[in-house]
């Protein structure tokens, strides 16, 4: 497969002033030349093929946005090479912009006061979309989601979900080769999340658009991505299939139970009974981390119910942060 994005040994450093505390420190900072170099992205390489959906994960401040800004041409890498659709993004920013679509979190790029359809018409002119393609795209959108009620509503009157949906539709409008989605489902309710995932999936399938998706929501990743790239502190930790990653988080779940009495004491008792699980307790819950490749949650629950009167329970999937922590601690097998 011909790669559409090629990143080779990319490094991005920022010069940050060493700040001092207090009023005296602030005055000193005014004249200070005391800079430190911060490496936001540290030697990252990857190749992404046409039509892939790649989940780009990492904790806050890991360097995800910085990488995306470099791929979209907003930032220039300190060293290394980036090619996006054959262009060097920073040098051909406008040419690159023609080939990509971007949705940046909760920052709408649409015209605030205009109804969506008017924004679309302006975008049609800006991207010089031929009439036939434009009409075909609108019809395609109509077949995916009910856009009719959105089209004539000013963006400022939309709910967050409608706005995000509109922003995504706008990003795909000129049929770009690559779309960057930065936390598209943040703050949305479950049904809107599902709607947006279906939409992205269908667009990728039909138009073979490459999608780079950053998110903290493992639901997004599960629904959309076959491949995952994880970075932390600017360094690449993982770049492989999601199925390969499942062994880190798919098999772990946390069972939380509430029992009347001293939870700390129960936690110790349960540890004795279930040596394969790690057990902890806080003020409300006893948490049991179950490795499902060794034992199932149902089995554990069954065992506990015989000895204790369980008043309430919760089941938690392991979070991205925990997966990354696990990868960080144990390395990639």
């Amino acid at each position, binding site marked *: 497969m011909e790669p559409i994005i090629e990143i080779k040994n990319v490094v991005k450093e920022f010069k940050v002033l060493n700040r001092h505390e207090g009023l005296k420190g602030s005055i000193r900072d005014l004249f200070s030349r005391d800079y430190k170099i911060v490496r936001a992205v540290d030697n990252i390489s990857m190749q992404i093929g046409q039509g892939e959906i790649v989940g780009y994960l990492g904790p806050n401040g890991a360097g995800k946005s910085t990488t995306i*800004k470099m791929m979209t041409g907003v930032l220039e890498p300190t060293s290394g090479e980036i090619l996006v659709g054959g262009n060097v993004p920073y040098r051909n920013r406008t040419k690159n912009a023609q080939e990509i679509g971007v949705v940046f979190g909760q920052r709408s790029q649409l*015209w605030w*006061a*205009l109804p969506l359809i008017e924004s679309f018409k*302006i975008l049609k002119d800006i991207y010089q979309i031929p009439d036939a393609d434009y009409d075909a795209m609108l019809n395609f959108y109509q077949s995916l989601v009910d856009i009719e009620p959105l089209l004539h509503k000013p963006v400022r009157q939309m709910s967050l979900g409608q706005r995000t949906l509109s922003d995504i539709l706008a990003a795909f409008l000129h049929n770009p080769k690559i779309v960057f989605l930065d936390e598209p489902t943040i703050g949305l309710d479950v049904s809107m999340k599902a709607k947006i995932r279906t939409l992205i999936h269908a667009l990728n399938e039909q138009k073979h658009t490459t999608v780079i998706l950053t998110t903290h929501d493992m639901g997004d990743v599960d629904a959309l991505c076959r491949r995952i790239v994880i970075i932390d502190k600017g360094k690449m930790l993982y770049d492989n299939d999601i199925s390969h990653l499942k062994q880190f988080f798919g098999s772990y779940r946390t069972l939380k139970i509430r029992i009347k009495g001293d939870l700390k004491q129960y936690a110790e008792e349960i540890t004795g009974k279930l040596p394969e699980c790690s057990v902890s307790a806080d003020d409300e819950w006893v948490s049991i981390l179950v490795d499902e490749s060794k034992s199932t949650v149902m089995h554990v629950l069954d065992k506990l119910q015989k000895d204790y009167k369980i008043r309430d329970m919760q089941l938690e999937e392991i979070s991205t942060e925990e997966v990354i922590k696990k990868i960080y601690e144990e390395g990639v097998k």
Partner: protein
Amino acid sequence: MKQKGFGFYFRIYLKILAQDLKSKMSYRADFIISTIGMICTNIAGFISFWILFRRFPSINGWGYYEILFLYGFSLVSLTPVQCFFDNNWSLRQYVYSGDFIKYCFRPINLFFYFQSEVFDVKGLGQLAFGLGTLIFAWVKLGLGCSVLMILKMIVFLLTASLIMISLQNAAAATCFWIQNSFYVMDFVNRFRDYAKYPVTIFNKGFRFIFTFIMPIAFIAYYPSLVILRPDAVPLLSWISPLIGILFFFLSYKFWMFGALKYSGTGS
């Protein structure tokens, strides 16, 4: 991909403008109140000016109607910056909040895209007021009317506008480096008031500053000399259109340099 020339940008601008006006009409009360506010500001400015000239009928050889001419001239030339470049006032908020990044993802000129987003209708009221003053002074001065005169007038009004736009662009662009560029913009805006007076009333030092460093003398004084004192036009008047273009180009480059250096806040 077709080449994006003047026609391309012009069409897009008209489209955005039409949409923008449509949405502005929907805030009718806002529109009416801001128009009334603009008229009041101008009338107040005019009255203080009138009171001043009742006491001193001439300043440094400049008569009442000549000064009035300068006044109208500077108002008219203020229209383009008011109408087309008003988004400069919001630039620092976009930069501060990180929202400026949204302008970086479109395949069109960044400066154009940013400025095209706002068209300030209030400028049109100012234009009407300025034109009225200018024509009144023109008639009173008995300047006559010929195609050449009007042509000259248009060229030098455009020159003055370019200088105003340049000053504002440069002032707004400082926000790419400093946190609170409002003071810079406000400062430049206040200095612009001096453009309404002939530069000869200032001493040598200020005359130099207003000509070469903050070129407000080019806003009204040097261009209008061509119309008002056709016998003794200094060289600086004739080259002022070139200076206008040069300053505009420099301010555009400065603005773009800042914008490209800008990296947005993390998100």
